[in-house]
């Protein structure tokens, strides 16, 4: 396609570099990167190794006892609870975010689009404790809406699985908007017209072209949302304490010694479980992202 878009800025191609980079320059390059490599090795690698070592050590000897324990009883419930909550938030957030993004992208109002994108940039970063407090003030036990509308009479409680989901969506939907707007912009009007020209209805266009083309971007968004909800700790801690079983809350409890002494290594095993789940989800994300970039460029 390069030949058809002469205006595109020539991105430096890997092959180009051979001409300039002699052996000396190349080692200089690695020298420039050395501080970063050392830093990541120390600040990230050492804790990661410590986590691994701890997770597989019990009473000073190598064992899988911690791991086994982390996959039983309350810990297992917490892990499943986290996965369920994150999956729900990811899927619902992705669907709502996509509709919102499409509404904005197809709108003729430029200002609406700019406004929603800016707001999304802020709200996607609006997490943690402040978010929890804002919702507690709104729908908590003595929240403004709860008391004015008498919601507690209907059995409403924010401090529940569904309450958490509602709150997590507050940063997940904007995140999805940010992820999916570029993909929607990438849907060329020619594709819709070409489909119509070939006799397709609007629905047939979406089924055969629109949705397949968007799928990598949408799945990528689902993965990011899952990761965000899965890792969230502050919001949950400030809102529900330990009412809703979540793996992040369990790890924090074990680490701060709120439970029996000697459970630190179970916390490490739980952390290991989390990393495995997050790693698997991310492993889906990266190839999808490449594919989407290729289609939508």
């Amino acid at each position: 396609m390069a030949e058809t878009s002469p205006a595109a800025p020539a991105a430096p191609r890997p092959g180009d570099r051979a001409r300039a980079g002699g052996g000396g320059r190349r080692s200089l390059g690695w020298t420039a990167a050395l501080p970063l490599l050392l830093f990541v090795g120390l600040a990230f690698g050492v804790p990661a190794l410590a986590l691994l070592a701890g997770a597989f050590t019990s009473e000073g000897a190598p064992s899988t006892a911690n791991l086994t324990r982390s996959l039983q009883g309350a810990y297992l419930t917490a892990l499943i609870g986290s996965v369920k909550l994150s999956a729900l938030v990811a899927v619902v957030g992705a669907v709502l975010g996509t509709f919102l993004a499409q509404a904005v992208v197809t709108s003729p109002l430029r200002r609406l689009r700019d406004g929603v994108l800016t707001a999304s940039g802020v709200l996607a970063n609006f997490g943690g404790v402040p978010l929890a407090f804002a919702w507690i003030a709104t729908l908590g036990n003595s929240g403004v809406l709860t008391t004015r509308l008498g919601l507690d009479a209907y059995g409403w409680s924010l401090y529940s699985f569904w309450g958490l989901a509602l709150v997590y969506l507050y940063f997940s939907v904007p995140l999805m908007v940010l992820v999916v707007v570029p993909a929607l912009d990438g849907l060329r009007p020619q594709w819709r017209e070409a489909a119509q020209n070939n006799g397709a209805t609007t629905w047939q266009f979406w089924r055969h072209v629109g949705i397949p083309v968007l799928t990598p971007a949408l799945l990528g968004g689902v993965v990011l949302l899952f990761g965000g909800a899965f890792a969230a700790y502050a919001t949950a801690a400030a809102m529900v304490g330990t009412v809703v079983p979540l793996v992040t809350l369990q790890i924090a409890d074990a680490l701060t010694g709120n439970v029996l002494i000697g459970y630190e290594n179970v916390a490490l095993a739980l952390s290991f479980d989390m990393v495995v789940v997050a790693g698997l989800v991310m492993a889906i994300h990266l190839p999808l992202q490449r594919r989407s970039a290729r289609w939508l460029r």
Partner: protein
Amino acid sequence: MNGAQVEFRGLRRAFGTTVALDGLDLTVAPGELIALLGPSGCGKTTALRCVAGFETPDAGAVLVGGEDITRVPANRRDAGMVFQSYSLFPNLNARDNVAFGMRVRKVPAAKRHARAAELLELVGLPSQGGRYPHQLSGGQQQRVALARALALEPSVLLLDEPLSALDAKVRVTLREEIRRLQLSLGITTIFVTHDQEEALSVADHVAVLKDGRLEQVGTPAEVYDRPATPFVAEFVGTMNHLPGRLDGDQVEVIGQRLPVHGEVPAGPDVDVLVRPETVLVTAAHDGDAEVVTASFRGASVRLRLRLADGTEVLADLPGHDATRLGPGGRAFLRLVRRPVLVAPRATAPAKVPAAGV
């Protein structure tokens, strides 16, 4: 496949305050290739999109095969379209792109694959069916797009500047292949382009549009040799504007009297429109014109000459005739004796024509 007649009747379309089509009347005969030619914003693409159904005219009608299709939805029209670029579905390979329309119409898989293979062969890509758009070059993408437009055997083929995003070389080969294919299928084809060379080289008829109106329609030779209006003369090919004086139905220009063709404007002072290839140049050391620049173009050379009064004239002559006419050389100029177009005098004296194609 048989072509149908296409007729534009008083087509009007405005976008806000810009009028894209201002009462366009045009008939395209069955099986012919007509080029809609004009500068950007002249309404040529809007006219094409009215046939495809992507635009609804504010007034007027589009008839295909005698039937008014102005209100028929785009997906039920009998016209295949090739877009400027990037119109292939990125998630489908070439074969599935071509078969898209048949898939929508629920043609059995085996049948549509066979037909797609046949079409890909027709456009010269027999072995590229499994490739995805991003793996194809720009020219190959447009070939696939052409196959896709032909897949449903439409009675009209619409080409919306299909070559404008391609390299010069690919552009020439592909336009010739489009023409060959169009002739063998006998399909009525409307080819929108802003490139006059492209229009002249492939079309049966060229329709020149300006500001949403038809300026002239005719064969390439008619449009080039007998432009109906100064605009057409200017837009198609290169034109000299030489100062002239009207005298009855004749005009006096660089010391020659030539008959006037077409409308005669008022006032004795006029611009005479002359093609560079009708300027005859004879090298002579005492000639009254001086060569300013000479650009060699292979078969021909284009000279820019300056007359004693400062008027600049472009002249094309065969390459081997121009060996003695480098910059600084002198020559006599003469015009081929034939009727010329004249236009009201531009306020600026002796406009120098752009050294375009």
